[in-house]
């Protein structure tokens, strides 16, 4: 089964991001394909490499990166939502004249078309958060 995942909530604020991670991990472990995880609205905050949670807490950002490395996951951050919230990659840094970038490993910034494409190409689009 080909899944796509949409994450609409930020880390440490709403359980949606934890649920989405656990679902994605379980799907991959069961041998399903997850063709894309799309981070939208506050969900883009899952993609900053600048977080430093306490050592006894889960590291939500690193956890996504590790899952992506293990399974070659395509993790896409919505560009318009990212611009509003200060999630920046090298290209966005130059384009918008910023002096820093903060995108975490294995995340990429792209457009809403990637969500539409995921909805069309996957067999199930599973949405977490509102």
């Amino acid at each position: 089964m080909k899944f796509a995942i949409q994450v609409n909530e930020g880390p440490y604020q709403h359980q949606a991001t934890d649920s989405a991670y656990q679902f994605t991990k379980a799907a991959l472990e069961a041998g399903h394909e997850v063709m894309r995880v799309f981070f939208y609205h506050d969900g883009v905050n899952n993609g900053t490499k600048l977080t430093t949670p306490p050592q006894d807490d889960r590291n939500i950002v690193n956890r996504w990166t590790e899952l992506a490395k293990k399974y070659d996951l395509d993790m896409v951050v919505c560009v318009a939502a990212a611009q509003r919230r200060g999630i920046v990659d090298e290209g966005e840094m130059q384009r918008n004249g910023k002096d820093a970038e903060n995108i975490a490993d294995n995340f990429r910034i792209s457009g809403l078309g990637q969500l539409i494409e995921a909805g069309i190409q996957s067999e199930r689009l599973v949405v977490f958060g509102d």
Partner: protein
Amino acid sequence: MDSCLAYAKQGSAVLMYEDGIYGAIKGTAIADKIAAASGVSFYVLGPDLKARGVAEDKVVDGIEIVDYAKFVALAAENDKVQAWV
């Protein structure tokens, strides 16, 4: 939950997770609605019950307690997936 039950049809599966697990507890108004929904299968996510301190014996009879693997299986088995937040 009311909207979800209104849309649920014969053969639908309803999974309660995150704060939705409170809908699976015995003795609530929701429990009566679940009992009245014939032909709909109900599930509740075990880890989310545990995270909220809800014991499994508090869950309405007939609701299956599942893990994330079964959550994935339900999403695969049913041809449409709709989140109710």
